[in-house]
Structure formats: structure tokens, C-alpha cells
């Protein structure tokens, strides 16, 4: 069986984290989201995998290259829509196939449930259905799909994961896949709606923290780096090669730390934290429920909670990031949000900076002693 993974779209609502990678490549629990999708397919014995790439295609391709199983890469030059992306792969698809978004987590069991049924989709109840395609079911079969409605008629949403026959290509008229599926249903082809067990989508950047929490919950502990004897490690903690952890550091799992990091001494790492590779956490810092990507550093005496930090950031000493609630304007819509900070790539922030519920764009420079509450700072800014 074949599987097509769509990883061409940028994921604009997750900006600023998508400057150097599409959403599918954002690392959650230290692995890009798309890797979990590929894993779930391989666990189901599906190895003929086609990935449609577009936005930042070189970065995606380079990553796919490192994987052990060979992946067929197809390029979608303009990101026109999901149906168009699927059409890009049409010449490589012979029969029944699975279609999956590369930027959503899905568990292998759900795939097992759908893979042998021609024309089926995985559905899942979601508390905020209006961000998705809302699905109406009739005796197990899909009767209607409404894309991002203002008033959702049900809480059942499409996960974007389909098991399809080659016929679907006849129904693709526009660029949107939902239209093609609706046309199929109108034409009398039945599409089964099958509930998914565990499916996670991060619509906004702060949703990554929830996904991170979920993916860390199944972490297998491993210790490859050097931890001082005075370090206290509790719960599931994974420490990568070349990482050194200074004395009197307390790590409470689930926590994953990548390779070649320098942590502590005297740091405290709380549960649900993912730390990438080559990250420096200076002494007397506290970090919890956060996601720190590669090559970033957090200065001494800092507190970082409920935060996503991009690559190559430098947060100076006495940074304080705490959870706050506020309205964020994302793609011209005001969204109620609750998080500490979302910090893009290559952000330099000075000592004694305070963040609460703030979004900081890429390459931003923040002078010391600033206080940011419910702010949204665009890319390449200077906060003085």
C-alpha cells in the first residue's frame, strides 16, 4: 500500500516558527512532526511513502534523506491547496492509498483501522471544531463536510487522514480536497467516517506545547550524556550524547534533552520540557512545560515556562517568562490564547527581560529590562 504525506504548506498560523521550516518539520519532543507520521506508517507495514514538499523544500528533503527508509519526494511548486498537492503525486500512485497531513500527529492504531477500507476518513471530536472541516455522519458514513464554518453543526471534525481509491482524482476540480470528497459523496460513493484514537494538530504556535506534552508522555528514558552525581533525575528523562549536566540540577520527567547541551549547575527542569541539541542552560535557571529548539541559550537566574523558543535564540540572564492570557491577532483574526512566550528563530533578548503571553518574531533584538505583556512583535524588529 502507498501513502502520501502532504508537507508542502508553510502553516502560516504557526508563525514565527515557520521561517526556516514548514509546520511539518517543527520539532516536538525533539523530532519533527512528520517523523511521527512516517513512524506510524512504517509500524503499519507501509513503506512506499511519497512526501509532497514545497515551502522550504530543501530543509524537508534533507531531513527525509537522513531517515533510514527511502522516501519518494514530489515537489509542489506553488502551494495552491491540498487537492493540488495530491495531484502533484498522481503519476506515482497506482491504486488505493492513504493520504495524511505531515503536520498532525496520528497514532499507529488509528491508521490500522482505516488502511484496509477503500474510501474512509479518520474523524475526531474537537472542542473548537470551527478551525477544521466539520463532518456530519449518517450511520457511520460521511454525509457532509463543511470547511471551517462559523457556526459548527457538530463537534466531529475531519483529521485530514483519508484512505482513498484512485478514483478520487476524477473528482478533483478545484484546489481543495474537501470539495473533491464532497463531490465523491454526492456522486453516491460512500465514505466511512472512522473515529481516530489519538490525533493532535497544533493550529497555533502555543498548541505545540500541548502536542509536546502528549508526545513526551510516551518517552522512553535513556542516558547517553554525562550527568553529575549530584544531579537528581526523576521520571522519564532522555539525555542525548555529549550533553553535560552540572551538579545540583533537578530534572523531573518527562523531559527530553538533545545532544551536546550544557545544563547547569543548579538548574531546575520541570516536566513536559523538550530541549534540542547544543542548547545552553546557565546556572540557577528554571524551565518547565516548554520547548527549546537547537542552538539556543537561556541565561542564568532565568525562569522560562509555557514557552516555545526557536533555533539560535539567546535569552540573557534574569529572563522571566510566565503564563498569561490575552487576545492574539493571527491571520487577521483575534484568538484567545494562554501561554508564556512564543519566540522565533535568532532572537536576541537582553538581561532582565519579562515576557507574558507574547509572540516575538524572528531575528528580533530586545534590549534589556523590557517588559512584554500580550504583545505580538513582527520579524526583524528592535525593541528599545
Amino acid at each position: 500500500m502507498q501513502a502520501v504525506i502532504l508537507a508542502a504548506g508553510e502553516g502560516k498560523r504557526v508563525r514565527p516558527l515557520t521561517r526556516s521550516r514548514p509546520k511539518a518539520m517543527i520539532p516536538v519532543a525533539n523530532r519533527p512532526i512528520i517523523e511521527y507520521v512516517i513512524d506510524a506508517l512504517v509500524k503499519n507495514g507501509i513503506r512506499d511513502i511519497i512526501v509532497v514538499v514545497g515551502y522550504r523544500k530543501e530543509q524537508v528533503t534533507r531531513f527525509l534523506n537522513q531517515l533510514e527508509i527511502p522516501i519518494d519526494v514530489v515537489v509542489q511548486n506553488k502551494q495552491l491547496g491540498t487537492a493540488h498537492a495530491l495531484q502533484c503525486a498522481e503519476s506515482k500512485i497506482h491504486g488505493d492509498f492513504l493520504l495524511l497531513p505531515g503536520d498532525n500527529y496520528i497514532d499507529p492504531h488509528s491508521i490500522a483501522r482505516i488502511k484496509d477500507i477503500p474510501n474512509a476518513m479518520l474523524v475526531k471530536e474537537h472542542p473548537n471544531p470551527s478551525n477544521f472541516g466539520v463532518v456530519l455522519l449518517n450511520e457511520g458514513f460521511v454525509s457532509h463536510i463543511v470547511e471551517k464554518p462559523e457556526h459548527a453543526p457538530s463537534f466531529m471534525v475531519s483529521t485530514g487522514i483519508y484512505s482513498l481509491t484512485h478514483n478520487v482524482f476524477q473528482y478533483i476540480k478545484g484546489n481543495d480536497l474537501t470539495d473533491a470528497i464532497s463531490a465523491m459523496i454526492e456522486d453516491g460513493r460512500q465514505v466511512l467516517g472512522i473515529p481516530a484514537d489519538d490525533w493532535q494538530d497544533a493550529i497555533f504556535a502555543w498548541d505545540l506545547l500541548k502536542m509536546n506534552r502528549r508526545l513526551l508522555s510516551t518517552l522512553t528514558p535513556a542516558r547517553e550524556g554525562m550527568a553529575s552525581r549530584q544531579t537528581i533525575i526523576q521520571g522519564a528523562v532522555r539525555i542525548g550524547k555529549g550533553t553535560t549536566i552540572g551538579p545540583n540540577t533537578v530534572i523531573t520527567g518527562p523531559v527530553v534533552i538533545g545532544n551536546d547541551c550544557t545544563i547547569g549547575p543548579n538548574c531546575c527542569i520541570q516536566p513536559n520540557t523538550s530541549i534540542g541539541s547544543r542548547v545552553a542552560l546557565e546556572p540557577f535557571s528554571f524551565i518547565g512545560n516548554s520547548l527549546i529548539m537547537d542552538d539556543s541559550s537561556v541565561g542564568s537566574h532565568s525562569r522560562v515556562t509555557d514557552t516555545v523558543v526557536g533555533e539560535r535564540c539567546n535569552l540573557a540572564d534574569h529572563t522571566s517568562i510566565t503564563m498569561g492570557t490575552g487576545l492574539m491577532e493571527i491571520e487577521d483574526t483575534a484568538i484567545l490564547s494562554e501561554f508564556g512566550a512564543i519566540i522565533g528563530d535568532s532572537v536576541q533578548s537582553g538581561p532582565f527581560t519579562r515576557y507574558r503571553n507574547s509572540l516575538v518574531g524572528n531575528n528580533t533584538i530586545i534590549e534589556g529590562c523590557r517588559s512584554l505583556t500580550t504583545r505580538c512583535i513582527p520579524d526583524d524588529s528592535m525593541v528599545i
Partner: protein
Amino acid sequence: MCGIVGYVGRKEAAPIIVEGLKKLEYRGYDSFGVATLGNGIELVKHRGRISDNAGSAMKLTGKTGIGHTRWATHGAPNDINAHPHLDCSGTIAVVHNGIIENYAALKRQLVSRGHTFRSETDTEVIAHLVEEHYTRTKSLLVAVQDILPLLEGSYALLVISKKEDCIIAARNASPLVIGIGDGELFAASDMTPILEHTERAIFLEEGDVAFITRGKLEIFNQGQPVTRPVELIDWSLEDVKKGGFAHYMLKEIYEQPQAFYNTVRAVNPDTVSSLIDCHPASITIVACGSSYHAGMIFKYLLEGSCGIPARLEFASEFRYFPPPVEGRVIGITQSGETADTLTAIRQAKTHNCKTLAITNVLGSTISRVADMTIFMRAGPEMSVAATKSFTAQLAVMMQIVNLICDKKDDESLLKAHQAIEEVLLMDISDAVALCINAQSVFFVGRGPFYPVALEGALKMKEISYIHAEGYAAGELKHGPFALLSTETPVIAICMPGETYGVMISNIKEMKARGAPVIAIGCENDSEVSEIVDHFIGIPPVSVFVQVLTSLVVLQLLAYHTAVALNRDVDKPRNLAKSVTVE
């Protein structure tokens, strides 16, 4: 990374295995070997590329066989360390891709039980372990299944015995595919060697052991028979190896951050301190092509930062100068086989010079000729135009300078890969548009950016066939100015630092002659961006890293120009990857 191939069928095995190994060369090419079941076990193994001397291997007889192409990890690449490895009695042959982590302990036990080892590889322990169990069990399948729990690490294995007409394949954390043909079966590291024979394949799972005999395949996991689905594969060969990139060159350009980071961390400080022990009077660098440009950057950095005089010669011209007496000579060659550089190093040795080789290929000829060798960790490079091997050469040389200068640039070297990542995100299509219609392009720079300009020009002419020249910016007005016109774009590298002010006046002079100027400078530099036609801004970093980032911009410029002109980027006309003639 290594590649393995196995065949059981009705045809002669050797030619099929040799062809298969050639296709796996992108996984490694420092030595190869083939073993077939003909008159007992027939074995051929050699140092070097299989494409260069496959002749003897083609003569092996038998319809069952295994083969291996190697990228050395344990033990230098030579005829002895090449796979397949035999047991003491020559009954069993093994090829292996991966690393056996506990091989030292296993080897000690085996030696104490009376086994004789021929090679320095980790793989040979497998042959001897199978031997022990085989004499007891009389079944190759059972013997292999018995020994697998003893191995720690990663492996994809193929084992044959002269007493049975079969191949036993096993995998753990290294890839292995079984191809199912018409009355014939294949095993290989990936689909590339199999594709021309069959499209049907089985991907083995972790811990699987496959029993491959004539027309029959059985797979076991933990001793129990299992069935694995047969998949239909229809990729083209080139696609698999390029892993989704349009060209090897682009793939390798994007591998540069990793190549640089790995190489910087792999340079052994002891080698460097023994090179410069009692503060040498001078260092001579010999190299050809791109390596020569890397040597020139080294010369600037070494003289500028460490105050050690350096002399740079084309390897082919080295012999026409009086040789340095008891000096230090560094030879730089990606392949380690460049004839000119080898001759130069040999000649330096006859004059009592201490010699150091910088190369990408473990155990290549130069590493045996020179007194010391530093290996770069770029991995196999397939494109003729050097990209990641050049950055890795710079990584070695910048690390040498850094170590001589008491590690004052440690931080910027360890963070350089981040700056390269930044540059890889840049859009340079406007600059490409300026270049594609040009008959000639000039590259200019000063100080360490002069060799960068030379390298940029070399890349441009190499793959886009546009006439390109690199000049020291100050030299342009001593003659080449006559060539400037509105049709000759000039690419100027203008970084903040000691070269900045005078570069700006050079750029103004060129603009005054009407030439369109593309400048590579520090982002936010409004002074330069205002006077030039097109400005490419790169992140502000140290000089070392500026050299790297501006170089990557020029590589991308050459690549995209060549693609826009429809050139054969990976195999430019008239060129070969490694020049082994003088």
C-alpha cells in the same frame, strides 16, 4: 556507511554483484570485495573504487554471492580490511554494514579460544562467531540466529558458507532490502542495485533473519517464521540516491552545516601541536583546484592570526621551486588520490619536511604517504563541483588556526553551522537573473575574501560554463578594467572589517565603468546596498564565518545559474571528480 549486495539465482552472480556495488558507491567507495560460491568460496577484494578495477571480481564463478563497498570506520581501507571477511578455515564469508560496538570484547574472547584474526575490522568477529556455532549446529541459519544476540550495535549482514547454497541475511538498525525476481533473489542495503532486475521487494524489520536459497525465501524473527509484505517499487535509480534533491550538488550544499560542524569537532589537537611543535619557520601548502583556494584562505588566516609565514603553491608547480628545507608541508586533497598533490608530498618528504595531509577519504594514498593526516568528515561527495568537501577543508584549516591561537575562535567555529543554515534560507533569484545572460562574470574580493572570489568564479565556470574570473579587487584596475562593460556583472564581496573602506571605493570605480554590481555584504549595511545594483545581506559574524557564508552564497549562485541555463550540474563537460594524472 557502507553498501552490501547479495544474489542467489540462475545467472552468474559476480557481474550482477559488481554492477550492484557500482550503484551503491554513493554509500562509500574506499574499498570493495565480492565472494561467490563457485569452487569453494571464491574471493576478491581491493582497495579503491569498484568502478575503477572491477575486472578481477567479474571473473569469479558461481550463482550465489555477496559483495560490499566500504566507507571505512574501523581499520584503514586496504585489501585486508575490505569485506567480505572469512573465518579461520575459509568456510564462511561475511559482509556487514554498520558498527559492532562490543567487537573489542568479542575479539579478545575469540582470540583466547584460538581464532586468528586477519583484519582490524569489527566485522571479522562475526565470521569467527558463526564458525564456532556452525561446527556445532551444521546449519548456517541456526548458527547465525545463535550469534546475533551476542552482537551489540547496528548491522545488516549477509553470510554464506561453502557447505550450503544459500545466503543468510540479518538486520538490526541498518537498512536491508530483499528483492524478489524471477527465480532469483537479491539482498541489498537499498533498492538501487535491485531496481534493474525487479520491482518487487521486501523490507526486513528490526531483528529479522532471512534464509535465502534458490527460489525460496523464509524470514524469521526471534526464531519464529514471519511473513513480510511484498512491496512494488517504481522509483528511478537516480532519485533514490539523490534523496529527493534535483542534483547531488544541491544535496551536498545543504549538507554543509553538518559537514562543517562534524569536521570542526573531529580535528585532533595533538596532530596540530605536533605539526607546529617548536614554532616552525614557515608552512608550505600544496593543493590543486578548489583545494588550492581553501589553502589560500588558510594562508590569510594563518599569517593574519598566528604570525606564521605561509607559502602556497599549486601542487603541479611545487617541483619547479627550490623545496623548503625541514619546513612543514601540508597537502590538501578531497579524494586523497590527486596525482599532483601526491607527487608534491613525496618530494617534500625526500627533503626532510614534516608532511600533513588533509583529505576526506580515510586510508587514501595520501594518508599513507604523509607523516600525519587529518580527515574531514564530509562523507562521500558525488558532485564533480566540490562544495561540502571544500567547507570541510575550511573547517579543518580554521580549526588548525584556532588551535594554534589558543582557541580564541572556538565559539565562532562551533556556531558557524548556524550561520550557514541562515544563508541556505536566502533567496538569490535576482542575482541569478543578472548572471544568466552574461558572457563573462567577475568575482572580486580582498584579504581572505579574495580566495572566496576565486572559488566562486571556479564554481561558476565549472558548472554554468559562463566565463568567470576571480580577482583581488585592487588588481582589477591594473588591466582587467578594460573588459568591464554593462554586459559584465561583477560580484563583489564587501564585508565589514579592514577591507571594507577600500572595497567600497573599488565598487564605485567599477560602477563608474557601467558594470552591474552584485555585492555580498553584512545585512543592514545601507552604505553598500545603496551603491550597487543588487545586494545580498548575510548575518553579521566573525571573519571566519563570513568567509564561509559568502562562499555558500556563491555556491548557490553558481548552482541556480547553471540550473537556469539547463546545464548538467553534477557531471559538467570535460571534468572528472578526482584527477589522478599529472
